[in-house]
């Protein structure tokens, strides 16, 4: 029995040395298997108990198990130590260059006019307006006559027109959509018509094609005061500030009373001064932003609405104008140049 115990002692000492000498997880595991594995040397000692006198077996068995526990603890401790050392080594590696650019395909861009159009439609949608559309190539009736712009009337000068072979026109405004909607629906209605419109005009501030959003609300009891309320709220939302809004009398054949709406200049905050005279508002402190008015009874007559019973307001605004002011874009032609150096900015 003594010799068995001595042998046990020797094995344990040898194992402890092996554990202490293990430099990495792999060699530690080899030591563990050699001594503690199913066929390991300590296990073999247990198996060799058959040769030990029966009265000694419990004691030796107990000693073997104690040694096993001690060695297992030693392996765990060594394992932790090795892991810690390796972790330390990993953590003390070179500094990553966090300034190198990120990977992955760069994003494209949605055109600033589409984004502005969506913003406008979202705000007005929140006010209860639904979107409507109509054709770009219109007949003269819907583009002019039904909107109270008779042939040979000077009001046609306000909208230089592209004519299409076969007697149609490119719509000069989105107002014909109003007519088309009113021809098919009865009040109350609240719509916005949006899309491309065309004018025979081309310079720094005029583009032969541009985009409009037109609003129309018809019901009993709709007033000019409502028009002011809706447009003031809209303009303050789209420009995201409490800017001053003024309505001044103007003339459109399809509305009466008609108004042009100015907002306090977004560049100089209405002071008219920014580095001398403000370039944007030319010193007036005001910027013309849209046209509007109460739907003219003559328009209602064309679509068969009773203008004694119903009143309505309409407004039309240029999407480019709003995008130019919001994003400080000075030349309307940039929108249509498709220059990636422009497109990528939005």
């Amino acid at each position: 029995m003594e010799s068995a115990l001595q042998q046990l002692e020797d094995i344990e000492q040898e194992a402890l040395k092996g554990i202490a000498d293990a430099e990495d997880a792999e060699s530690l595991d080899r030591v563990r298997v050699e001594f503690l594995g199913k066929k390991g040397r300590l296990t073999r000692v247990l198996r060799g108990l058959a040769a030990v006198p029966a009265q000694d077996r419990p004691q030796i068995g107990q000693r073997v198990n104690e040694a096993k526990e001690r060695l297992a603890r030693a392996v765990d401790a060594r394992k932790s130590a090795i892991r810690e050392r390796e972790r330390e080594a990993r953590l003390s590696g070179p500094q990553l260059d966090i300034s190198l650019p990120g990977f992955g395909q760069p994003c494209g861009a949605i055109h600033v006019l589409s984004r502005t159009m969506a913003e406008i439609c979202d705000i007005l949608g929140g006010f209860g307006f639904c979107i409507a559309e109509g054709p770009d190539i219109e007949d003269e009736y819907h583009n002019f006559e039904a909107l109270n712009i008779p042939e040979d009337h000077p009001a046609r000068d306000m909208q230089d027109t592209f004519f299409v072979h076969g007697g149609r026109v490119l719509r000069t405004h989105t107002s014909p959509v109003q007519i088309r909607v009113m021809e098919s629906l009865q009040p109350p209605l609240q719509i916005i018509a949006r899309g491309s419109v065309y004018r025979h005009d081309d310079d720094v501030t005029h583009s032969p094609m541009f985009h409009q959003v037109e609003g129309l609300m018809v019901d009993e009891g709709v007033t000019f005061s409502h028009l002011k309320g809706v447009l003031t709220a809209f303009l303050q939302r789209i420009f995201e500030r409490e800017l001053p809004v003024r309505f001044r009398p103007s003339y459109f054949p399809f509305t009466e009373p008609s108004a042009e709406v100015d907002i306090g200049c977004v560049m100089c905050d209405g002071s008219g001064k920014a580095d001398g005279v403000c370039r944007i508002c030319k010193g007036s402190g005001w910027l013309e932003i849209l046209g509007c008015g109460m739907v003219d009874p003559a328009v209602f007559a064309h679509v068969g609405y009773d203008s004694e019973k119903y009143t309505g307001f309409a407004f039309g605004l240029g999407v480019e104008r709003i995008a130019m002011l919001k994003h400080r874009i000075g030349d309307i032609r940039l929108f249509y140049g498709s220059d990636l150096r422009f497109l990528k900015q939005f």
Partner: protein
Amino acid sequence: MLLPLSWLSDFLEDLPGAEVLSERLTMAGLEIEAISRPSEGLAKNLVVGRIAGLEKHPNADRLSLCRVDDGEGVRPVVCGARNMKAGDCVVLAKPGAVLPGGVKIKAAKLRGVRSEGMLCSAGELGLAGDEEGILVLPDDLEPGSPAFELLGLNETVLELSITPNRGDCLSIRGLAREIAAVCGLRLKPGFDCEPSFPPAEASFSVKIEDAAACPGYRGLELHGVEVKQSPLWLRNRLSAAGMRPINNVVDVTNYVLLELGQPLHAFDAGLLSGREISVRTAAETQAFVSLDESEFELLPGDIVICDAEGVVALGGVMGGARSAMNADTTSVFLEAAVFAPRAIRRTSRRLGLVTESSYRFERGVDGGGLDRALSRAAELICDLAGAEVKGAASGILPAEAAPSIRVRCGRVNAVLGIDISAGESRDILERLGLTVGAVCEDGNFTAVVPPHRHDLQREIDLIEEIARVKGYDRVPPSMPAVVMRQNSQLPGEGLGRRLRERLRNSGLHESIGFSFCSAGMNRLFPGLHRSDCDAVQLENPLRSDESYLRKSLLSSLFEAFRRNLHNGATNVDLFSLGRSFCGGDPPGEIDALAGLLWGPRRARGPGSAGAATFWDGKGVLERALLPELGAAQLEWTVCAERPEYHPRAAARLSVDGRHLGFLGAVHPLVSEHLEIPEEIVVFEVDTRVLLEYAPLERALESIPRFPASTRDVSLLVPSDMLAAEVIGQVEGLREELLEQVSVFDEYAGSGIPEGRKALAFSMVYRSGERTLTDDEVSELHGRVVAHLLSSLPVALRD
């Protein structure tokens, strides 16, 4: 319309300053576009000079050296003009003067000769006039006297934008009347006095053949006219109002036009044939030579003024050459008439001839002002040209009764949303010159419109006037009550937004191009559907290469591509959502999506890194479109017949057998034609088809509980075989345990026999009930491969 304030104050008392006036008029609907103020830089250093001597510049052929008497002495001035002579009075800008353009005058040596000032032209002083050379003044002026006020340069001028309904505001007098009403100013005494028409026997008879075309015609014959330059005060006023002085008679007609809004025409009475003027519309096509010697073709319907020989003037638009005023004219026939606005507009538009006269007639001239205008003109011509009235002519038709309009106080408030009393409404209309009746018990009253306000015909017109004069700022803003209904948005709205998002996430940039294009681009890109349809052509394009509407969005994208190429872009990935057009009655409009990919990119699938490939485009389209199609799948078939696509690298897309669009590499001929690189991938899709599908509402598929086994197979197949054929065969087996088959490599080249290519497939096997054993999977995979080898002309690649 230019409004010189000194002229306005002939009619108005106590005119406020330009700023105040401008603000108040703008808020009353008379928009002030600009205020032009006196140029202070000229106030001190601008004097009358007399040319004491004149010689050629010693060192320059085109320059003269003038000795100019400035009242204090004689100074040398070098001048480039040639229209002056010794003894002329001219305008001298002395050193220190600043011209309206910002140029500061300094004493300097010009080609070696000292010059102490500058002789000015009308244009350099900011005056109207396009005569060559410097301004020569009347020669009775005193050298050294200040020229600033003498030339009317101390004038402040408002530039108004008059809306087309306000023809009555196209004159100084009309504006004075309007300004008095909206600003509460007092008109000067005599504003409304009827002038005394010069007594004269009728020397011409007037025959109006078309009363609708010309409701009124008056004339005066003046003899003893001496045609010469107008005096400075008249020239100054015309200049300030933007008109070029010509001679005393023409200047007077223009002066009266500006002041009273009534166009006048002066004929040389000696050149008129016979003693009858007839006004009619042209009966047939005929030629007409205008007083500026331009030739026009008249059509039936044009209003003409005729003498015994024929047409002498295009009524309301322009006089003719045959009877035009000239330097030898001694007798004048002065015409004041009213013409039908629409006829004038038609003629003026058609001939491209917009004159001060036609502009006013189009917008409506008050027929009641003929005598006032004629007598004012006669008075001035007699005064300035030494003439006297010899005869008259008259063809006045009875005026239409002015409309009487009922104004309901309740209606006024219902439209405006304010509370304005009937009394206040009535007062406002009275201020505007309407004749108003007493307010009845129900709050209503009647108003009779004065002849100059032909734009007021209905109650709503008067409601606008009430709001305008009261001030729009007096209407409080309020929100309408709206029905909070389900916001039924246009289906295309959401689709467009989703497509934009996904294409943006795929790295494409949205481009918005004009709908116009050239005939050539329409031939290259014939569009999605009926490639044989006619293009929509514009009658009046701005440019010849923009004379059609695009049949395909690709036209716009290729223009955008070329511009970016020109700007040095190395990668161009663009898309556009918009309309394309094709002819017909009515013309067709297609909502479409198109895209263009060009330039190097990383490999993301079959094919090597480098140029954009068909598969780059396919990936973009699948990511964009598949989420829109619900359970439906995109179908791809080889497309070899479209002229704009490469016949070996293009596909037709469809869904449920319906044509959706095309994707492919561009045909080399397109690149050659447009002089652009090859290896461009484009696509075009009819987005209307997508609207018929609802984006899939996804229900959760259960997550597999057992592991899958994957086996690969690499096959040698004929080069033109599509991977889809192999996949189709595999799927045709309907092996329950075969979960998925996909292609992961395509290769041709070294090691692969001619006419063949290698395709590698990956098969995923899985059971929903247990873990498959290795042997089971191998046996199954063997069966699948054996099927392929037996049913297709393919071989295993070793």
